[in-house]
């Protein structure tokens, strides 16, 4: 879509990504078929067994994937998926999100959110320290009050909250 007709060397080829996506689906389909075989795919007196449906779904998915792979192979070789700069932008949020999620079990969702908001505001946009601090601390704090105190929904908490008695 984007970058159509531009020079081909500014990003990964659309065709490769297309093939990778189809390949991923193929792996998923094989996994489903394998799991279904484990669960039993027969059709007994009581109708289909546990693995019957996943087996059918996995098998058809495998066929559909094969067609998509073939179509992908035939696709344009010059079209790019996205420019490297654009992908860098995507990575600039995906990696922090991954770190954010990985940190939740250790420092809790509230403290992790403070850091995430601060990172976004200071690095991705460039806000000053005061405004960043205000939003980055204020929003998770408000969320904490709404969830933990008012609605009594417990979310993952870390050592800081433990020290404070939650």
């Amino acid at each position: 879509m984007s970058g159509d007709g531009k020079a081909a060397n500014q990003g990964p080829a659309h065709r490769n990504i297309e093939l990778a996506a189809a390949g991923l689906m193929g792996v998923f389909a094989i996994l489903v078929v394998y799991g279904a075989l484990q669960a039993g795919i027969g059709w007994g007196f009581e109708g289909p067994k546990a693995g019957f449906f996943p087996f059918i779904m996995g098998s058809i998915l495998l066929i559909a994937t094969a067609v998509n792979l073939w179509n992908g192979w035939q696709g344009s070789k010059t079209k790019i998926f996205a420019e490297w700069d654009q992908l860098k932008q995507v990575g600039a949020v995906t990696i922090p999100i991954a770190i954010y999620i990985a940190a939740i079990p250790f420092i809790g969702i509230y403290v992790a959110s403070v850091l995430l908001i601060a990172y976004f505001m200071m690095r991705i946009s460039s806000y000053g320290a005061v405004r960043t601090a205000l939003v980055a601390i204020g929003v998770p704090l408000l969320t904490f009050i709404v969830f933990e105190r008012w609605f009594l929904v417990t979310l993952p908490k870390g050592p800081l909250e433990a020290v404070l008695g939650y």
Partner: protein
Amino acid sequence: MIQSKSSSLFVAAAALGVALSGTPASAQWEPQRPVEIIVPAGTGGGADQMARAIQGIVAKHNLMKQPIIVINKAGGAGSEGFLDVKGSAGNPHKLIITLSNLFTTPLGTNQPFSYKDFTPVAMLALDEFVLWVNAEKPYKNVKEFLAAAKAGGFKMAGTGSRQEDQIITAAIEKAAGVKFIYVPYRGGGEVAVQLVGNHADATVNNPIEAVAHWRGGKLRPLCVFDAKPLPYNEKIAGDAAWSSIPTCKSQGLDVEYLMLRGFFMTPGATPDQVKFYVDLFQKVRATPEWKDLMNNGAFNTTFMTGKEYVEWVAREHTRHFNLMKEAGFLSTN
């Protein structure tokens, strides 16, 4: 710099919160945080209703300083909830309310937990099971019903698979020498409606799930799977009360089954902590709301704690093992 600022602010704000809520020091143990009740079943079911009723009763009568939070973890026939509690050893702020899947899930699916992993607190009640048929059907008692069922092809609707309803069905099959087609559904209410709509021939619904249809003249109770008739004399449908339903045994169908509604704590809970919750449940049992709940659901109100409770649970486990073994429901792997 931002971070240090943030945490100091956070500390200040939260310290204020602690100061307001206060932490009284007393000799007896009591919860310092909100207490979670894990429900190893979905929202709206019997166990969930009981947990939420207790939550409400404790809040209304101020029986505990900390609030109760109900959390449903129904995945994997309840193993999600049980494994969570098993993995929270030493956390005294977590309880689990059990139903028969405490026994049936590890036996039927080979999940790595057993009743021995948990610290028993108390049995609050036992849920009854009643054999129901559609009121339009000609059979008025167990004998006539079983005679008709002998022809074969009778559909028994029930909640879940390889769980209490199917175990009772298998026990009836064995005791009476008949064969049913067991059709599993997700919830007891749905099961009762299948019977009202004549999509099934019989059910073993809990009283609370089917009572409305009985009052409406759509369903007919044939017998109760308990050793003695229910003690509730209030008229429900015409002249009939819960107490007028005969026991199955007296009708020549020798099957008894009651389902545990009890509490367990995480592994390694201390006697002090157990005592706190036992006392709490005693207080809950004394409230009028609890008595109404028992009355509505025609529960068996047996209360047990300590050694008596442990022995009861062990006996039930053996019984489930045998019942499931005979029915071929044990996990094969």
